[in-house]
């Protein structure tokens, strides 16, 4: 019973932690692409900011993944 609960919790943690960053990255990239298309001369700056934004957002999914492995296997 306890193992089943831990497994369910791990699955929810991983799944929910992937949804949020997915939405965030979608919004971030959409806005960045629009900015690059409107102002191609600042595309370099926008891409740098976008890359860092994606990496920061991805950290949330990584935290969810770590919670998943700790709940499931430790």
């Amino acid at each position, binding site marked *: 019973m306890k193992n089943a609960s831990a497994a369910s919790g791990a699955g929810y943690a991983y799944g929910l932690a*992937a949804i949020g*960053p*997915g939405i965030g*990255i*979608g919004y971030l*990239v*959409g806005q960045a*692409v*629009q900015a*690059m*298309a*409107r102002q*191609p001369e600042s*595309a*370099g*700056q926008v*891409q*740098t*900011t*976008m*890359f*860092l934004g*994606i*990496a*920061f957002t*991805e*950290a949330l*999914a*990584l*935290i969810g*993944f*770590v919670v998943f*492995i*700790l709940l499931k*296997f*430790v």
Partner: protein
Amino acid sequence: MSFPTTTQPNVLAQRMEGPSPAVAVAKDLARRGVMIAPASIVLGAVFWGTDGALSVALGLGIVVVNFLLAAAMLGYAARISLALMAGAALFGFLIRLGLITIAVLLVRNEPWVELVPLGISLIISHLGLLFWEMRFVSASLAFPGLKPPPNERRIIQEPEMNPVEQQEQL
């Protein structure tokens, strides 16, 4: 009859030329990752022994490869079109998350893998490297290597003299 007053940019027809700034940032992150590796591995060894050190090294390696892979995908796609870059960013996120999951699940039963230091090193090195990089990117957003030296920055930051003071000095 109405005519459109503004034109929408076509993201399918636009692309980025030249070296990718994302690749430059990722290489910088990888260089810093190599710099912090010895200290991180020693910390892992102190708290969890040899297995901890190996797990911390694995976590750091996964983070660095993840950064490089993300930048390579973005840079390659941006040279084709901005729309493809958006797709690469979104599907790249899923693909890389899947690769990290596979990489960890493949080694989790190995005797030298400790999951706690591996997880801690994944989170701390990812966020730590990003915050460290932010210090340099904020100075020169597009190309971190072009950050001005401290002397030049001080000159730029000095307030300009107003015209009355300039005339008084003359």
